[in-house]
């Protein structure tokens, strides 16, 4: 029975697929059903440009010819001549294992679906992809490769780590970003999957660390519908999945204030991510994956 792309990539149906190789293939195939543009050019965009010289840039990269014409120093930026190197950075903290009352998948599962899809796409066109999972520190690091075996390794890793994980102490965004940045020798593309539940300044510093390496950063801010809408009604005891702390309150009484504060937080996050010229996408874990992927490609196309 034929399925529409939206149905195929609905998190509920994807959650039933245990084999991540199959899952990634299904996402990618489902994504391009009915699209006019050739999908395989998604990552191989040849692009070069000039940008104003900044202190610290190597002198050899200054375009002296342009200087002669304009009396201004510009740096020449070259297009990637080798295959693209991409990193999937997944937040594996306990909060990522949260899912709302009416949701089929956890935020973590959703992030792995997306990461698997991107890995599949990259490796299918001979680019390389690596994986970093983190919470308070880096938990798992798989350097980027471009082989078929490597694709299998990545997808297997993503599939295995989607099981239940006990709450850990929390997430250290700044520290893990610094560690990850140190690992990234080459400029490339960083896919950052996280719920970013931390004070905004810490997130800002982490984003700054990742983006300042010269790599292209794309942040997928994955949140549950319950976090976005706070639909609870009865007087309840809320337990923090990361710290174990407990808070008793009447959620209905606090909903408006929560939503107001949460919106402000989201605005802040989006503002400073975009200030760093990084891509940002707020992802509701109930959304079909194709919508998220299409938005991503559309944004890259526009940027090109």
């Amino acid at each position, binding site marked *: 029975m034929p399925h529409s792309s939206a149905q195929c990539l609905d998190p509920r149906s994807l959650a039933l697929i245990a084999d991540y190789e199959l899952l990634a293939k299904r996402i990618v195939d489902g994504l391009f059903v009915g699209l006019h543009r050739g999908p395989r050019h998604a990552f191989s965009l040849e692009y070069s440009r000039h940008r104003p010289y900044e202190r610290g840039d190597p002198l050899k990269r200054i375009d002296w010819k342009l200087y002669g014409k304009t009396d201004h120093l510009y740096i020449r930026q070259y297009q990637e001549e080798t295959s693209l190197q991409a990193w999937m950075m997944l937040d594996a903290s306990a909060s990522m294992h*949260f899912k709302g009352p009416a949701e089929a998948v956890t935020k973590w599962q959703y992030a792995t679906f997306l990461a698997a899809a991107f890995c599949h796409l990259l490796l299918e066109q001979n680019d390389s992809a690596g994986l970093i999972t983190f919470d308070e520190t880096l938990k798992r690091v798989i350097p980027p490769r471009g082989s078929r075996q490597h694709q299998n390794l990545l997808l297997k890793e993503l599939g295995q780590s989607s099981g239940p994980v006990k709450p850990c102490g929390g997430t250290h965004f700044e520290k893990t970003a610094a560690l990850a940045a140190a690992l990234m020798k080459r400029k490339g593309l960083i896919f950052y999957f996280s*719920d970013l*539940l931390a004070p905004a300044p810490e997130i800002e510093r982490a984003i700054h660390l990742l983006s300042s390496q010269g790599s292209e950063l794309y942040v997928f801010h994955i949140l549950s519908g319950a976090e976005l809408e706070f639909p*609870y009604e009865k007087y309840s005891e809320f337990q923090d999945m990361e*710290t174990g*702390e407990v808070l008793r*309150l009447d959620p209905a009484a606090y909903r408006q204030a929560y939503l107001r*504060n949460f919106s402000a937080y989201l605005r802040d996050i989006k503002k400073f991510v975009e200030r760093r010229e990084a891509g940002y996408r707020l992802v509701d874990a109930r959304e079909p994956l194709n919508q998220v992927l299409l938005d991503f490609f559309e944004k890259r196309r526009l940027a090109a």
Partner: protein
Amino acid sequence: MSGLYFASGWFLAALAAAVLPLAMLFTKEAVRSKIRFSSLYFLQAMTRPAARLLEWKRWLLLAARVLFLILAALAFARPFKRLDAGGGSLSPRSPLVFILDTSASMGYDAGDGRALLDLAKEKIRLKLHAGQGPLTLYTAADKVQPVVIREKSAAVFLKKLAGVTVSDAAGSALGIQPWLAEHAQEFNGSKVTWLSDFSTAPQDAHRIAAVREVPAEIIAVRPAQFSNFYLKKIILPPRPLILGREEEIQAVYASRGEIRAPVAVAFFDGESKIGETVLDVRAQPSGTVKIRHRFEVPGLRKLSVQAEQDSLPADNRLEELSWVGDPLRLLFIQDREFRYPFESPYFYLSQVLESSEASTGSQAWFRIIRKSSAQLEEDDLAGYDMVFMADTAPPPPKTLTRLRTSLKSGGSLVVIPGRHTDPGAYAASLPMQQLLGGRFQEGEPQEEIHTLRPSSYEHPLFQIFKPRGRGRLEHVQVRRVLPFLSETPAQNKVLLWLGERTPCLIERKIGEGQVFIWTTALQTDWNDFPRDAAFVPFVFEFVKYASRGRVLQTLRGVPGEAIVINAAAEEKILEMNGPGGARWTLTPNLERQFQFEESGRAGIYSWRQAGRTFQKILSMDAAESVLVYPDLNTKAAGRAALIPSVNPPVPQRHFFYTLCWLAALAMASLETLAAAFQFREGMRL
């Protein structure tokens, strides 16, 4: 809301409703579910700053709600209004309410062949007149029955009234008065008449007398001759009864002289009748009746007297406990010969005791034995009830050790100093020090003038010296004292003081027995006590008290009076024996002072505590039952007022109610404001 008054169920229900907001709050706040949430970061950041303020406001609103409900209930509640039962503002067409006593005593012959109930019906008939309001009749025996008759027509009412008969139940005004008080509000505007013979058990009489006003007109339906006879108290000799000797037992009785037939008064030893006397009450309405009886069995005896002819014979019984035994054996240790008898330290003591012996003929209830310390070495000290050691040197240690052993099983040692007492010898004798728990102060006796002061007039030794009692101990002057230094003050209890600080008489418990230490001699060169009028009764009380291992400590009271028991911490259960063989098991629940309140019946209540038996005799001495009749007779008719014990009057009640209303309105306003503005977002009540 006229039915809502302080004592009504509605009012109490309204108060209970005040608990509702609390219950709702706690129910609402009961944690229904636990949610594992990704992060409390935003929730905590949001709630933390306002949490304390919110909490205060929340409790404030809750208090406002509860107060509102309580104040509203108070504002609606009303105390009883005064009933103008005597007529007054009541119109001739006001409803008439009759409360007719139909207890068994109303079947009593009124003297002319009719029963009291018929007499009461006749009085009701006389109260009716043309054009009166609706008629209601309640009948009451032990309690008030529901409405028996409610009619508008006097003829029909009287016809139905004729069918009312006497019940088998014993009645008591005690059951009707509270009912009247409770329903007074319903009778507002009605003329209430209570018809009864008001015959009440003597032991209940004082309780009725305590409630002298009822919201009704009272008509006492009395026979021409009322069988009113009751026993007031038993009089026994003020000492133990002597075994094998004929003793006299008296009973005091009182009556109104209305009894034609002779009244038989029987005396009992336990359940055995030991004597009976027939009285002609018309000839002598009050007086004493006595019998003589020889007791052949030793031990603690319950003596009782009962009048067999009375309206309530089962209750007309008095009881008294007494010890039956051999005469007391008092040992005076005397090591010295005196030229003149009055030089003897026992002179005044023996004068009192022997004169008492002489005054009762040959009926000696004690024997005085005089021996020297040396003679005691081979003596059986356990055979003495009291050992007096006045102005003597301490006996040899072996004798003292044997004395201590014998004291542990009962009896008393009385140590009295004198001019030859050597404090050093007492201090040097270790067994003596152990017996006394201290020593006399070295040196000559102190020459200071003191007066006697009992530690408490409630103490059995001094009860008879209460103000207006026999003699005044405070008038006794003491000039010479040999101070005693207690080394174990906790065990040496001062019974009698000299002035403020110097002990005069100290009691020390040793097993079942006790040691009494005087610090002044019972001689005229030491004090005026032997010359004082208080000396003779004191000596008797002292001997009775000091030998109390056998003669029980007796407390007196009136029926209905709570018996106060000073329970020791280790006593978890007490057995209380009451009149007529009644028994109770009491659990003081670690309360030091425990009150036993089921003491409505006259008789002896006894209990054992710390190895000793206590008794309290409840008799009608203090509550003359005849007082009830003048108070409840027709002179009181027409008087009606609040009954203070049931419904305490509220002073300045207009102000009180206004205040309640204003406060309730303020609370309601606060509530409305809170609902309208929701003090703060996130606050829902």
